[in-house]
């Protein structure tokens, strides 16, 4: 199950890359919109802190960070 899951995720990633188009510098207006960003300000640290201390999982924020102090 785990192997199949990881494999299908890799396939999704590769397909996404294959689907890439060149976007010229002057065509990047939509990508610059705040609602198109990958993380939004102080939300990331807040929600990660809440969930990391109330659930068993952590990580997945896409950024390197300090260790979680919750036991």
């Amino acid at each position, binding site marked *: 199950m785990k192997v199949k899951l990881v494999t299908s995720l890799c396939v999704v*990633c590769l397909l996404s890359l294959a689907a*890439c188009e060149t976007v010229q510098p002057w065509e990047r207006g939509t990508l610059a919109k705040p609602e198109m960003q990958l993380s939004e300000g102080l939300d990331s640290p*807040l929600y*990660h802190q809440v969930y990391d201390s*109330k659930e068993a999982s952590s990580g997945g924020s*896409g950024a390197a*960070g*300090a*260790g979680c102090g919750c036991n």
Partner: protein
Amino acid sequence: MAKPNPFLALSTAAMALPAFAAPQPVETIVAIKATTYQEEDVPQRDVLAGSDERYKIDIAQFRLLTPVGEKWSLGVDVAYETMSGASPWGTIMGADGEASLIMSGATIRDKRTEVSLTATHHGESRSISVDLASSDEDDYEARAVSISGEWEMNNKLSTLSLGVSYSSDDIEPTDALRFGRVQREEKISRSLSAGWAQVLNKNSVVHVGLDVTDHDGYLSDPYKLRDVRPDEKLEWALSLKYRRYFDNQNAALHLDYRYYNDDWGINSHTFHTGWHQNFGDNVRVVPNVRYYSQNEADFYRGTDDFGLATTINQSSDFRLSGYGAYTLGVKLIYSALQWDVSLSIDRYISDKSYGHDASDQSHPALLSFNMTSFGLNFRF
């Protein structure tokens, strides 16, 4: 005097560099956020002893991000929390054949302060950052350092990010002698992370990330009556994020997924989706849903077995049981050129039946909470 389980985590993403962060910021940004978090009380019938009141936590966050000279930027994050409430000390079988909680008595307020500083050097298509973070509270102290870099490629349509971090935590449980708790313990965490952000077309972007962390040292909960965990944990998480803008609707869809796995036997799935709907030029409304599901740890037990030797791993911590959870949330944002204001409301509910691989018994400490946040950002 018992202690609540505070938010012990250092803000792992406190200085999260968003993808496309390689260029130096052009303006100074100041952000503040005030949050109130309230767990629902445990049903009285599930409490054998102690208080049924759970945590209430108030959090204040402050962030400053500013360019310095031609090639540098500096970030400062400060968070301050106050918390009160009771926490589960143990789980035992009640007379009715159902697991019951032994809770601590109601507690006095506890405080936590966290500060992190990040210095970033910006090159033409890459940036390197060093982050120092520190977290302090009555019984807990953590210090962390991390180094990360971002490289833009393909005419800035692709961004590679790599990071490494090291954290050292010390715990000195309060009332250790009185309750027979450990007096002073340490824990070391080391982690590596890698990410790739890719623009797919004018309207969509995707991000893949992998984090691997190793924890070494005292990993048990010292406030529980019986909680014995391995002195080592290796965990990894794979994350996918997708953003897509819809021209006709003037809205963006967010889809996030994370798969987590550790060598304590836990694996989990997290899905988060949000619809960012614009109304006119200034207003955005974001309804969002999060679904979480985890299975139980290898050494998880529904009730504590005080007959087992203290060297045998066991824990009845609800956070190690098999269950699922939903969060329903909505965020409202009003934006002007140099500032914006936001209000978020979230409700979280958990139950063993929501999970993909539930434990045999429902843990009475599975919680629900409500959270409300108010935020302000300034740019100048």
